[in-house]
């Protein structure tokens, strides 16, 4: 057991899979010799060499296209897109190519690859380097979408993603890279499509993802301490496949559900979960389904503004409290 940062967990996760399988190769901008702009790939080039860890030009279409061609013909590529906002310049692969090739070819074409990317706000980078784009990916049939919140989940879910036969979008949160957590020694392999109950509770369910997970946990502690409200906090972890059973079972117990989403409000991932609850667990509910999200607004650069636009611990706690007391 060792304490590891989320950033070092990325390195360890990639290294674990590259050491296990020679077909795993890694490409992206500044990822090899420079070790990545977030220092989340330091040492991989030295450990695995220039044939397996490759720097690319600033050509996001070439990166994702090459990953796909390699995946179709026998490799298991991990491609890095530095900031998830850049998905917009290579979205053809994410929306049209990876996810549709198997279906269109009646099952002939395979596409086992992972796209890692730095997602989310908190770095004061402004509207084009801070977005949470999980909902861009979640809506596309054929993709899997994963967003870990802790170092141990980074390793286990990254390993599961690399070993998965489908294209996986792996969203690392930039504001979590420096966070730490306990990680056991040896190989770590998790399972896609499994949510985790991080804090059991009886009064309300809070579902959260990535950076919103530690905030939801802190809000739950605050509510318990200050209001005597006992919240169950679920880390969704995997949007596709989605572990609805864990969420539905929790709602059956607490009769309340809140989502905490960093993505802007419209069509955020929580809307899908809430619609499932409304459809399948309506009579379990004692109150409205409430989404706590970033508003329908681009992200500002200034720290004071960026801090105010995302769901905060106080905002989450306040909204849960007001709803339960209404």
């Amino acid at each position: 057991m060792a304490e590891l940062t989320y950033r070092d967990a990325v390195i360890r996760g990639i290294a674990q899979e590259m050491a296990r399988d020679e077909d795993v190769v890694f490409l992206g901008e500044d990822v090899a010799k420079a070790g990545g702009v977030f220092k989340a790939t330091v040492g991989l080039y030295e450990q695995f060499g220039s044939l397996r860890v490759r720097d690319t030009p600033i050509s996001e279409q070439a990166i994702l296209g090459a990953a796909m061609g390699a995946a179709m013909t026998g490799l298991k590529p991990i491609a890095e897109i530095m900031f998830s906002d850049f998905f917009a310049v290579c979205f053809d692969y994410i929306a049209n190519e990876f996810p549709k090739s198997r279906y269109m070819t009646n099952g002939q074409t395979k596409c086992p690859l992972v796209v890692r990317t730095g997602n989310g706000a908190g770095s004061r980078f402004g509207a084009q380097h801070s977005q949470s784009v999980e909902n861009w990916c979640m809506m596309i049939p054929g993709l899997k979408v994963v967003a870990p919140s802790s170092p141990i989940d980074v390793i286990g879910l990254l390993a599961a993603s690399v070993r998965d036969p489908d294209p996986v979008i792996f969203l690392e949160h930039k504001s979590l890279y420096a966070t730490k957590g306990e990680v056991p020694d040896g190989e770590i392999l998790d399972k896609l499509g499994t949510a985790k109950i991080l804090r059991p509770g009886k009064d309300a369910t809070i579902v959260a993802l990535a950076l919103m997970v530690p905030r939801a946990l802190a809000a739950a502690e605050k509510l318990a301490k200050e209001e005597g409200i006992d919240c169950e906090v679920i880390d969704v972890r995997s949007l596709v496949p989605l572990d609805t059973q864990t969420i539905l079972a929790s709602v059956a117990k607490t009769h309340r559900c809140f989502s905490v989403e960093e993505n802007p409000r419209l069509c955020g991932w929580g809307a899908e979960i809430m619609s499932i609850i409304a459809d399948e667990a309506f009579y379990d509910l004692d109150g409205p389904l409430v989404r706590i999200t970033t508003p329908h607004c681009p992200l500002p650069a200034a720290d004071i503004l960026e801090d105010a636009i995302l769901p905060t611990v106080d905002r989450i706690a306040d909204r849960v409290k007001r709803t339960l007391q209404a």
Partner: protein
Amino acid sequence: MSKKPAQSPALNDDIGEDTRLELYRSQVNIREAEQRAFDLFLQNLVKGTSHLSLGQEAVAAGFAVAMKKGDLSFCTYRGHAHTLARGVPVEKVLGELMQRDNGLMRGKGGSMHLTSEEHGVMGSYAIIGAHLPIACGAAWRAQYKKQDDVSVCFFGDGTTNIGAFHEALNFAAVWKLPVVFVCENNLYMEYTPIADVTAVPSPAGDRASAYGLEKIVIDGNDADVVYRAALKAYDKARSGGGPSLIECLTYRHSGHSRADPAKYRPEGELEKWKERDPIKIYRERLKAFGIGDDVIAKIDADVKRVVDEATEACKASPNPPMSILTTDVYADGGFAWRN
């Protein structure tokens, strides 16, 4: 810069009779199958869209015949010709165009996505430029695994103006990938003359130097010229020499798609190019080599018979069953996204 193609080399025997007959058969097969597709469209039996390569057969035949088994083709939505040229049965192609259960992908892909991995046809891509980086990736795999196959990527002149073209060319050159980029310059991006929207006279050839590549512009209507250029590029790729970019000058006899009567052409242009019809050129070539009319007529008749039989088989084939509606979205065979 004139659009005049390079001169055909003098008749010689470096290609040989068997290969020439194969080149001829391939071109006639494409012509016959695509003409049939057009006829079936007029009978409302080919649905959706379709993009024919009538007049461009020498490019598909020349590159495909020069390939080895295991080489990979990446095509565009105008991909029937390249698919047929790799030996995919006509029935499978027409069946897909007719959206029947006997189609190559049982109707799930349609005309623009013909794929037959067992024949090395790694997909037909309907988003302009998308497959150039994908071909790079397949070539990267060959390089990494020390396999000697070549990835061959076909596209039109219009593709040279999209970003993915330039990203892929640079990427392939920097990584020295065993990939051959083949631009079929048929003079029209879709409905608009390529010269009206391109800063240089040779849309591919004049871009080659930007990526440290040789400018190669060839007569795309002469299958011998195409075949020789293909062999040279494949040899270079297999021996670690990196990518090639080859611009083939050709002309499509039909419109961009089935919706296009091609009224934008200047008067007489089509007729002029039909004098340089690749099949006409090649029939004369065979005769010049002393191949008899009877041999040529037998190939023509064999091809027509196969296309006739394929047509009947497709007409008799049922529609795809509802049981395949949501299969193969994910690798587990289904489309489940939740538990």
